[in-house]
């Protein structure tokens, strides 16, 4: 199904714009799109008239040009009529913001809308949702632009059952410098569901990773999700809420009592290479890592550090997250030592973690990463860079990125998050090498890659 009418519309109608309440959701949505997005926006209210010197259309039928997207923010009981008018007008799809459907007991009303739309091949998001945010394209969130924090344009497609969590996660993405291709709150998912979002984002060239916030699936929906996820060529990340075990019916079996809802969910995601993030923080790390490295690893990590302590902390975190720190081959260690600068040749510890000491210079780090990348025992390299060391230059990010690109083995960097080190961070980021702002974050990025095996 082509959903570009929803995610990249060239024209949209906002239905339910109020003539008296400036903060009505429809008004917020109309204003922000009309003023700030490259989409031709029309306000609709049956009373007609004008709003801020722009015409108010009595009905979508009155709009002079074809319309891609309808954003519907009228009371629930009027939604069927409005949807019917949109279909008659030939509008290609809708976001139904309105609440008052299945979530508050009006399942029949929701079904009525869903059936009508299905018959007309009219895709919609919602009801009871925030809808879609596509940077530089469209924003149906009814939150004033000055109040929310927008992540930049990027390559994560984010899908959430909760609008609140979606907005919150967007703040976190923005904080970590992660961008989204689109973010969508699917609400009651009466028409478009998670599986449709996998299909859409898989063919969307702007998206590299598809991330989900999931509270639960409907009957057998989890199986459909897994089948689509398994066939999807892009990495999928999920964050699950509602992990506490629900009661199991009495007189049941041992198996039923042990295979609680969440354990089943978690293990099946793992079985099918879907990376399950434990926390919002992990979700952010996973998205960043997988957007750079979609292929899997076994999880044999080589660590390079300029401080013994950081190496140990990283090794502990690897152990905690199920990653191995194998010994590096003797030949690798010999090759590296022979090429180290004389100042550290005798004092560098060339075990795993590799400790190059605070006296190392850029060239020592490049040499170590280059040759660790060639070690068959390792399939991922963590470089813990502390720019306090005088021998480390501002170019280390860009230079190390070139080594990693050349060697073709995943490199993950840790650089303390400080404005003065931004040039290093950007040196990595611009070359699509993921950078974490903590040692733990770097380890979580490696954990994300272990979601599946290399083939």
């Amino acid at each position, binding site marked *: 199904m082509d959903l570009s009418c929803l995610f990249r519309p060239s024209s949209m109608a906002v239905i339910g714009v109020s003539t008296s309440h400036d903060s009505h959701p429809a008004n917020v949505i109309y204003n922000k799109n009309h003023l700030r997005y490259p989409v031709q926006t029309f306000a609709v209210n049956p009373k007609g008239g004008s709003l801020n010197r722009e015409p108010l259309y009595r009905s979508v039928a009155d709009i002079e040009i074809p319309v891609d997207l309808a954003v519907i923010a009228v009371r629930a009981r009027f939604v069927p009529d409005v949807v019917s008018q949109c279909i008659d007008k030939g509008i290609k799809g809708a976001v139904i913001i309105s609440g008052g459907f299945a979530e508050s007991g009006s399942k029949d009303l929701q079904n009525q809308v869903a059936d009508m739309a299905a018959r007309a091949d009219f895709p919609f998001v919602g009801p009871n949702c925030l809808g879609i945010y596509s940077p530089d394209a469209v924003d149906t969130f009814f939150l004033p632009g000055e109040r929310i924090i927008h992540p930049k344009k990027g390559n994560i497609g984010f899908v959430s059952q909760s609008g609140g969590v979606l907005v919150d996660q967007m703040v976190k993405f923005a904080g970590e410098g992660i961008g989204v291709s689109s973010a969508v709150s699917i609400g009651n998912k009466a028409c478009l569901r998670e599986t449709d979002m996998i299909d859409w984002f898989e063919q969307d060239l702007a998206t590299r990773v598809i991330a989900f916030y999931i509270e639960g699936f409907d009957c057998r929906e989890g199986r459909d999700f897994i089948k689509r996820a398994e066939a999807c060529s892009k990495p999928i990340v999920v964050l699950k809420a509602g992990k506490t075990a629900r009661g199991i019916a009495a007189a049941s079996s*041992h198996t039923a009592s042990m295979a609680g809802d969440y354990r089943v969910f978690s293990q099946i995601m793992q079985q099918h290479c879907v990376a399950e993030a434990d926390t919002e923080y992990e979700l952010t790390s996973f998205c960043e890592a997988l957007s750079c490295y979609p292929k899997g690893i076994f999880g044999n990590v080589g660590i390079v550090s300029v401080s013994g302590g950081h190496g140990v902390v990283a090794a502990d975190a690897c152990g905690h997250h199920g990653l191995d720190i194998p010994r590096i081959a003797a030949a690798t260690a010999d090759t590296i030592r022979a090429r180290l600068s004389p100042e550290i040749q005798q004092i560098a510890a060339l075990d795993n973690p590799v400790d190059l000491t605070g006296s190392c210079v850029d060239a020592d780090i490049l040499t170590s990463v280059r040759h660790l990348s060639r070690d068959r025992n390792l399939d991922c390299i963590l470089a813990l860079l502390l720019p306090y060391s005088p021998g480390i230059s501002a170019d280390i990010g860009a230079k190390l990125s070139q080594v990693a690109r050349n060697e073709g083995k995943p490199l993950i960097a840790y650089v303390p998050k400080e404005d003065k080190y931004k040039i290093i961070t950007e040196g990595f980021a611009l070359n699509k090498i993921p950078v974490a702002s903590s040692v733990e974050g770097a380890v979580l990025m490696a954990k994300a890659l272990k979601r599946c095996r290399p083939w």
Partner: protein
Amino acid sequence: MVMTAQMQKIIADAQPMGWILEPQAKKLLADSGLGIPEGIVTDSFDTAQKFLAAGAGPVVIKAVSADIVHKTEHQAVVTGIQDPDTLAQHMERLLSLKGCSQVLVEEMVSGIEILVGAKNDVQFGPVVVLGPGGTGVELYNDTAIRLAPVTPADVYSMVDSLGAKPVFYGFRSRPGVNMEALTQMVVTFSHQLMDLEPHFESIDLNPVICTPDRCVVADARIMLLKK
């Protein structure tokens, strides 16, 4: 695989009760190719004693009762019976248990106890569960869960994810299980689950007893969906 007429009849007969009695459950599983112990269902001491005499080793007897879902809690299982007198004595006690008019007499198989289970999950449909078996399974809660049907590689990954993994592969000079036999059993079982999907709620094959040669379903409980 398709449901044979016998399978359908077993399920239909058990529907009012909500679960399938062990002898019928085993028949259902054996029909699809799972190994079960040699055994008979009887209320006659004579028949039971003949079964004991004909076999090479000890037998186990179990109460067959619609009122007893969890047999251990009713002391409704006696293992390691070697002589006719003990057999008769225990059989008499089992036949006095609530709802018990017959007992299941089976060859006793010894080996590593494994839980092979299934749940008809609301969100995902049939899933397979594997872990160390026995009466303490819930205490250790050491299980691997996979979407059914599974592949042989899934079965290995399940075993590898268990805390009890060394038990499966053999440790401290004790032999492990026959992984080929276990894999075949779990894969076959997982395919049968897809046929049973409209009917079952959850299944315990606990224990499945695995020796270096084979795996047999020593106990089976199939809970049906309420219709």
